[in-house]
């Protein structure tokens, strides 16, 4: 036992605050997002200088990134929730395909009004996510596998509905699809606007609600979160429900985008969504990242696609190789720029 003498207090840690600030800046979790954003801009500028004669510089080309990737953004936002909580959702692509098929079938073949079909589709998607979350949590089965089963199941259900694609001729769908919101320099589609709204809502939820913080906590350390008395099960199930909902919403946007349901729509899109999330600086192990990063992840993927189209002379396999190489270059640069910080 130590002497009962009052131990001296440590002298005021004069430099503590400033040092902490320095480490915080270096180890800032926002850094990956900033780097991704900066690289995106650099890539865009590079594209500008290379393809400026082909109209790359037009504002609409930039806005098209949102129009053409709105659905991916929504799906990726759902995936962000899941990944942030330390899980993964592979059923995204199938769920999108299923939603297009399901809505097309209801609208065209069953003649239900769109106003009824949209909430129905969203509910089905959310319910699908809920079921997967329920199984993952209650039976402690790895999310990868449960959602892989989901991938098979929903793709299978698409085919069960119809092997053939169903075109949507519903007038309201047509109008919605063609509605453009003018921004002065160019315009955005409904899909892009919805995606941006979802982005804003997601950012709010993740940063300003208890639910959002729980998602981060679970991703940080599930065991601890449980011991800290957080409702682990509820949160996990909710996260997959959100993802299911977002996938269904993405499916609706996708349906607006291409006005048809097809059983092979969006095959493999889960990988795009996951890639976007990760490129945006979110860790697959969970607990770290920003939904804004996901936006840039999606934009980067979209930009890679546009650049390749603008290049225009690539044969099929060179397209794949170029996509891989651009992705690789991007990730490597991003990595070297963020790895300056020390663990």
């Amino acid at each position, binding site marked *: 036992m130590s002497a009962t003498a009052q131990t001296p207090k440590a002298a005021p840690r004069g430099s503590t605050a400033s040092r902490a600030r320095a480490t915080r800046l270096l180890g800032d979790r926002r850094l990956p997002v900033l780097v991704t954003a900066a690289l995106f801009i650099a890539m865009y500028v590079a594209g500008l200088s290379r393809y400026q004669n082909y109209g790359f510089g037009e504002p609409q080309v930039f806005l098209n990134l949102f129009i053409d990737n709105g659905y991916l953004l929504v799906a990726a936002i759902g995936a962000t929730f899941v990944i942030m909580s330390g899980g993964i959702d592979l059923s995204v692509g199938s769920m999108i395909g299923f939603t297009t098929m399901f809505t097309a079938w209801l609208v065209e073949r069953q003649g239900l009004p769109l106003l009824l079909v949209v909430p129905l589709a969203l509910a089905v998607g959310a319910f699908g996510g809920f079921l997967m979350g329920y199984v993952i949590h209650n039976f402690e089965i790895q999310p990868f*596998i449960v959602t892989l089963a989901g991938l098979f199941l929903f793709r299978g259900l698409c085919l069960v509905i119809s092997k053939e694609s169903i075109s949507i001729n519903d007038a309201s769908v047509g109008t919605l699809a063609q509605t453009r919101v003018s921004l002065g320099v160019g315009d955005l589609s409904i899909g892009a606007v919805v995606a941006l709204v979802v982005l804003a809502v997601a950012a709010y939820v993740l940063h300003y609600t208890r639910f959002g913080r729980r998602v981060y906590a679970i991703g940080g*350390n599930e065991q601890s979160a449980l011991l800290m008395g957080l409702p682990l099960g509820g949160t996990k199930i909710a996260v997959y429900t959100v993802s299911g909902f977002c996938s269904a919403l993405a499916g609706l946007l996708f349906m607006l985008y291409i006005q048809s349901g097809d059983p092979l729509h969006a095959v493999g899109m889960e990988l795009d969504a996951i890639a976007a999330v*990760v490129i945006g600086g979110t860790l697959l192990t969970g607990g770290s990242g920003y939904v804004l990063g996901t936006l840039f992840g999606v934009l980067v993927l979209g930009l890679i696609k546009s650049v390749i189209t603008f290049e225009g002379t690539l044969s099929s396999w060179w397209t794949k190789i170029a996509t891989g190489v651009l992705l690789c270059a991007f*990730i490597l640069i991003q990595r070297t720029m963020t790895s300056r910080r020390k663990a």
Partner: protein
Amino acid sequence: MTTTSRWRALTHHHLFWPVAVLIALLLVNVPFTPGFFSIDMTDGHLYGSLVSIVLFGSPLILVAVGMTLVIATGGIDLSVGAVVAITGALTCSYISDQTDQNTLSAVFLAMGIGLVAAVVCGLWNGFLVARMGIQPIIATLIIMVAGRGVAQLITDGQIITVNSEPYKLIGGGYWLTLPFSVFVVTAVVAVTVALTRRTALGLLVESVGGNAEASRLVGIRSTRIKIMVYMFCALCAGIAGLMISSNTSAADGNNAGLWIELDAILAVVIGGTSLAGGRFSIGGTVVGALVIQTLTTTIYTIGVPTQTNLVFKAAVVIVVCLLQSPKFRAKVFGAKGPEGPRRDAAPVEPAPAADAAPKMEVSR
């Protein structure tokens, strides 16, 4: 030992549920294909459903075995399908350039080229993951995307057909009445088991996957180990690529090994290895791969309409996973699962029977 306790020990074996599912799936076929278990002699080799399951399942087993090690380090390799395609494409395009496609030396050289390419892919993956610290899913996604392009570049987007008897042997031929691929798979599995359990590699891999920071602090050269493991995985995928292309005597850069990564991961998990890394079981993976191949064959033989193939597959996967989940068994069968903390120790409790898992280490 009483029978009940022996039964308990049996059901707690980590291979019990995968094997049970495998047997159940095999039995499902009997009403549809009465001669399902019969094996005849045709043209000097064995012929029957079981033989074809093993024959067609071989590539998947190989890929899954490689994948097991990668997953044990806490990683994942999405590029195996592309590696399968690249290896097949390189090998076949080399062979098809030969005037005499039957010379052994040329075939060996061709296979060598293919496998070297595979290993290079693995090296690249390993470099990105271990050296650059890029998340495995993304690191391997690069080759998954670009690799198939490379394979198509090699084959010029066409299917390259070869007419080489020796090459045909690996994936489609028979030896001592058995499919030759059986021998290849046995050899690879044996080598893997020896490599991981007779040396300390298995322990180090499990340690890296189980706690990376702790492993660094005990001086495990995890970079090296990870690179090795990714190279090994790619090598396995490469051999699988040889097998697939040899099986049809053709290299299809577009479709060879398409989505095999998902089946391989599924096989690994059905075999009882946790995707979170750590403990792994090669035996489990082999059984898992056989389960998936049997499932595929079952779909073909019992006349599932094409459009419900996937629903059927999903249903089986779900059932298998539920059966493997001790919590599910406890809830449904009322049986007390192997008691454990509800969520203790490792972040993701490697499913079920891991508690009772027999130790696969060097000693008994």
